[in-house]
């Protein structure tokens, strides 16, 4: 996904890029861009006019016995990391998912996908298992190989984090049931041939 650099408190037509005046914003009606004629509806919020927040610098230590930040020994500790317990200055503390975290815990959380707010991509193993169980049925003979693979994918990834959206394990269950049915079918065929 690409981002576009922005100027302050100005909005331009998304069709031709011509800057727009604010008279028609938040009217709830469509209006036409004076240049390209595109029909626009614009809703702006107070954040558009909020200046850039002042950068936190962190307070310098005033007394020798004062607790200092783990990462910046010259700065006063202002918070405690809820994950590792390190002291943090205002520069280092980050609030995420209702917890105060230090930079290394955030990094670890991103790497291990422990913090859901930092997840940007997930593989849907349940859909893979289900496809592996269903699609090969078009060419039935390959199911002798794909059915065990589908079961392996389902069991191996059963506990792995899946989509962050509401989703049950129904696909895993269905994949296992279908794959076992295919294996049972092959077993029955072999028994019939043997007899």
């Amino acid at each position: 996904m690409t981002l576009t650099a922005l100027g302050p408190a100005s909005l331009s037509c998304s069709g031709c890029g011509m800057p727009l005046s604010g008279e028609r914003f938040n009217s709830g009606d469509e209006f036409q861009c004076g240049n390209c004629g595109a029909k626009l509806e614009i809703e702006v919020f107070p954040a558009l006019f909020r200046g850039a927040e002042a950068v936190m610098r962190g307070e310098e230590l005033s007394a020798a016995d004062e607790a200092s930040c783990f990462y910046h020994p010259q700065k006063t500790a202002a918070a405690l990391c809820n994950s590792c317990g390190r002291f943090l200055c205002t520069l280092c503390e980050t609030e995420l998912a209702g917890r105060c975290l230090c930079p290394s815990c955030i990094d670890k959380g991103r790497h291990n996908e422990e913090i859901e707010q930092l997840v940007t991509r997930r593989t849907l193993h349940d859909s893979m298992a289900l496809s592996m169980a269903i699609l090969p049925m078009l060419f039935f003979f390959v199911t002798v190989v794909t059915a065990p693979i589908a079961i392996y994918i389902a069991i191996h990834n059963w506990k792995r984090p899946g989509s962050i959206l509401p989703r049950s394990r129904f696909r895993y269950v269905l994949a296992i049931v279908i794959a076992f049915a295919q294996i049972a079918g092959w077993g029955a065929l072999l028994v019939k041939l043997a007899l």
Partner: protein
Amino acid sequence: MKYKRLASSRCGLGKWHTLWLCEDHLLAVESSGYSEEYARYYLKDIQAIVTRRSSWGKVLNAVSGSLVAISLCAGIGGYENGPSPVSVTAGIFGGFFLILLLWNLFRGPTCCCQVRTPVGIEKLHALDRIRSVRKVRDRLRPLIGQLQGGITRKEIIELTGKYKDVSPAVSPAAKGVKGADSAASVAENMISPYRGGLHRAAFLLLIADAGLSLLQILHNSKALVILSTFASIAFLCLAIIVLVKQQSRPVASLAKWMTWGGLATMVTGSVIGYFFMIFLNIGKIKRGTTQDQIFDFYAAIEPADHPSYATFIFAYAVVIAVIGIAGLIALGREQRSFERRRP
């Protein structure tokens, strides 16, 4: 975390986008079936939601409408002494495109929705219909208001007014903003506009092809077939150039979607015409048939003897003529409007 689904849209082959609402952020999900990619927009950071009506819905309506009309004509034409394979096939295709047309009409006009945050502008692919954008916006307004506070229209006018009288070249928007470059180029376009010459040529070719097709109904000949084929090929080549050109030029939206409509009708008409030619010359076409012989086969079909073929040619000619004339009218109106706006 509890997510509530706000909107969804299918985009391309095997990809779809959904938009979810959590207590403090919007989650845009791009799903390909086996993986999902997430983008979060925190409600406290959302600065604006910009919606621009797009012509994609009209294009889809024009294309599916044309295909319904062509299928209907072919179906009626093919129904000579009871249902024939042509009428049955046309009926199936017509029904499919009719459902597509009705579904598109039901969902309402299309749009392109963008969300602006302090770090950039991003398109919300899941919001591709005006109706769904309005619904989502109405739902988000109180939630964003709780986090950011309210703002009146008077305040907006005052705050945005600061940038109103600044020329595009020096306005804050011009500094490093993608849109600002195009604003400057648009300002140039106001002085030296694209006059739509290529569009006009393409639409004239469509009208010419319609005329040639109508002549074929009266009396088919090899010369007419060759001329019509060349007109179609010329239009297809020109349409590709025009479609590329209209991406960056301010061309009337009606003219834009008429180009798409013309292209779709031309391609569909050519394919159907080709099948008619094969169907009516079964046994004659063999391996090694030359292009010249194919022209002969086309010329040998006398529309008066084949009502289904005549109906198809007539419907095709009418549709492309309407598209061509509508495109020319749209270009003319755009030109007149530009002359009025010109200082």
